[in-house]
């Protein structure tokens, strides 16, 4: 049933990349527990606007947990406290009256802050660009059923392909590593026969790009898996390591 709660928000405000930024305090009064977290921020933003202040900048689009655009660190946790949930799918029924909520942007050396809670995640696109695809030009494909794919592989590939590119894994990692993101893409493609021909090339290129973009190494902290809203499994990192190893020692890829 619907309830209304009152909250204190501590929100990171930062005018631009060079600004120092600080936490500001806002009262969120009479918040319906049926609202989503972002709807709660909408309410605050309407109030700020009417009070002649600048609203809080935050990224969002689909608001149904699929586009990967939203994200903030809520009480120290990327996408907030609920397991397997994006910020836009987090609902206020998971908070209690008089709670204080800290809301901060992804903090990672790979993601620069643009404004308030908005960060630049362009590095994730550059990782895909480095090799996160199958080279199949439009027009040349054989009949879709020409190559059967074992159901189990297709399912595993799907599990990995469910990544929404939100960057929470990077934000959660003490080393700012993108291993879960890259592992998910490498796994998705290598688990399918269509992705095999380029497997070695892909693993090498994506890992190299990751290093050159300033992402850190994986030291098995497992924070990424714990915070991933799509519950991408850390076994994908193991698969990435294996593929990378294979490409280094058993392929012609330099």
């Amino acid at each position: 049933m619907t309830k209304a709660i009152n909250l204190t928000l501590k929100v990171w405000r930062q005018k631009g990349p060079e600004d120092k930024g600080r936490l500001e305090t806002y009262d969120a009064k009479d918040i319906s527990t049926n609202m989503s977290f972002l709807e709660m921020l909408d309410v605050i933003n309407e109030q700020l606007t009417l009070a002649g202040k600048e609203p809080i900048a935050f990224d969002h689009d689909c608001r149904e947990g699929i586009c990967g655009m939203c994200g903030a660190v809520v009480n120290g946790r990327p996408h907030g406290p609920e397991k397997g949930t994006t910020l836009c799918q987090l609902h206020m029924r998971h908070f209690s009256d008089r709670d204080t909520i800290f809301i901060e942007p992804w903090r990672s050396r790979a993601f620069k802050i643009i404004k308030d809670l908005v960060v630049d995640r362009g590095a994730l696109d550059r990782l895909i660009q480095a090799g996160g695809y199958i080279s199949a030009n439009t027009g040349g494909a054989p009949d879709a059923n020409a190559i059967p794919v074992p159901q189990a592989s297709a399912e595993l590939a799907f599990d990995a392909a469910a990544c929404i590119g939100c960057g929470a894994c990077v934000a959660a990692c003490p080393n700012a590593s993108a291993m879960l993101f890259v592992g998910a893409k490498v796994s998705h493609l290598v688990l399918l026969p269509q992705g095999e021909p380029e497997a070695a090339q892909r693993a090498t290129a994506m890992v190299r790009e990751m290093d050159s973009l300033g992402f850190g190494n994986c030291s098995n902290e497992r924070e990424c898996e714990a915070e991933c809203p799509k519950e991408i499994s850390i076994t994908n990192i193991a698969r990435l390591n294996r593929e990378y190893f294979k490409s280094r020692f058993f392929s012609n890829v330099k």
Partner: protein
Amino acid sequence: MPLDAKIPIGPLAEKWDRHRFELKLVNPANKRKFEIIVVGTGLAGGSASASLAELGYSVKTFCIQDSPRRAHSIAAQGGINAAKNYTNEGDSIWRLFYDTVKGGDFRAREANVYRLAQISNNIIDQCVAQGVPFARDYGGLLANRSFGGAQVARTFYARGQTGQQLLLGAYSAMMRQVATGRVTMYPRREMLELVVINGQARGIVVRNLITGAIESHAADAVVLCTGGYSNVYFLSTNAMASNVSATYRAYQKGAYFANPCFTQIHPTCIPVHGANQSKLTLMSESLRNDGRVWVPKNAAEKRPAHQIPESERDYYLERKYPSFGNLAPRDVASRSAKEQCDSGRGVGETGLAVYLDFADAIKRDGRAVFEQKYSNLFQMYEKITGEDPYETPMMIYPAVHYTMGGLWVDYNLMSTIDGLFVLGEANFSDHGANRLGASALMQGLADGYFIVPYTIGGYLAGTTLPNVSIDHPAFKDYSAEAKNRVRKLLSIQGKRTVDDFHKQLGLVMWDYCGMARNNDGLKKAKEMIQELRDEFWQNVLVPGSENDFNQSLERVGRVADFLDFAELMVIDALDRQESCGGHFNEAYQTEDSEAKRDDENFCHASAWEFAGEGKTPILHKEPLVFENVELTQRSYK
């Protein structure tokens, strides 16, 4: 200008082949010299960018999100149709064509729809080759399911995230071209102006959403893939940033807008929770395969669902449409739900909901099978509502979901402005007055992968294109215009927020130009929109500044365009004195409240020409000629 759809002559099944043969080709060595701008990176924009670059063109691609992987196509859940007939049920290109034309209530062009059905099979092949992890059977072959408006299982799917997987396929193909340098990607850019020089689309003016800078980009052709306009209703299933601005701007520059009143209400959305709701969430229509829709027979019913005995439930879709039952097409299912709620039998806190019950299917197939098919949808429902649909039936209500109307395009997908191509939901081309489930993904990808790569070549090879760079005075003028508009909006400094106006507009549209319409209501809506627009330009409050990341400023520009566009929708709805598909005028219905078409007077696409600010737009009619199917009353009984 008379409308020429440029439909190739000859038998339906040979038109596309013949046309491709007749289209002029661009010499491969010259392709690099042609610059093409693509706006939007959903299925249509992503696939077009990738395919054009593969052919060798120099492509510049723009999107409003921070990454081209996020456009709203990503949220499509259910699936994508193709006439593969893998299930051996007797499906064929002809049947897919026929179902789509009929589903669209005979308001789409035969030739376009037939081509779509032909291409559908290539799409599945292409996506599988890219690594789209479609659902498969135990033997490793592709699985299919059925969808509303069809009696064969022809829908390919990737759990409940088909749109996501297809979009990531197109996105990765495009990123591969970014790596080759043939696509240059411009994220966080919003198109503010279309630049037309000597009647040809030659570029765009965009706002850099991070810095606020106004930037100019020139090209030899412009491809708009900017999606639909459902957000004119404020509440819809569309992503928050989806908007009409790019297509509306093209309309103001001379592209005709076709059938703007054709909007689709999706029958299975999660009901509204309250005044601060920001958007609606769809529950895939595929759930209607296994769910049974019902309301209590008794309007005064107070018991929770599971205590209401079978005999006191009304499975109204099964009752009214015995042969299609819960799979009746979207418009029919939506209106029936509204009818039930209007008669006081709606359920839930607001009374604006009906049950979608899976108990029988779970009993039949077991929970495990069910989880494999729908787990993410059920989780999503539980996250939003806090209720477990394995235990209590889902509650659903119709919501605006898709817009069939869009910029008018000919068979080549070119608008009435030379060199301006429009793909996907942004055009009006294939769905007539109602789109069938699992057809949007098909159309977006058909347009981008398999149609525009040829037709744009035909245009470029057959057109004289004078050299144009961003130093051309037109770019200066348009940039100045864009800047002035931004400044004007910022300078009003009124008392009401952008969202406040947007919500009010949405309510007007939902009440008077939504699921059911009538002439009095539409006339009233027209006045209300005009008043609201006047107030908006006096009283809107936009915080922040121009040269900054400013989300209120982004939104206010979109709402300003929605306020103009809404009136065009109403004008179109008033003009079309018939009911068809998603356009239901209460004055025109059959005895059992189905849409009643008037083929004698309205068997045409209505293409509107902008006549200037504050002037009544000019109507052009493209007659729809049906040579291959017989116009019948759509019946799903």
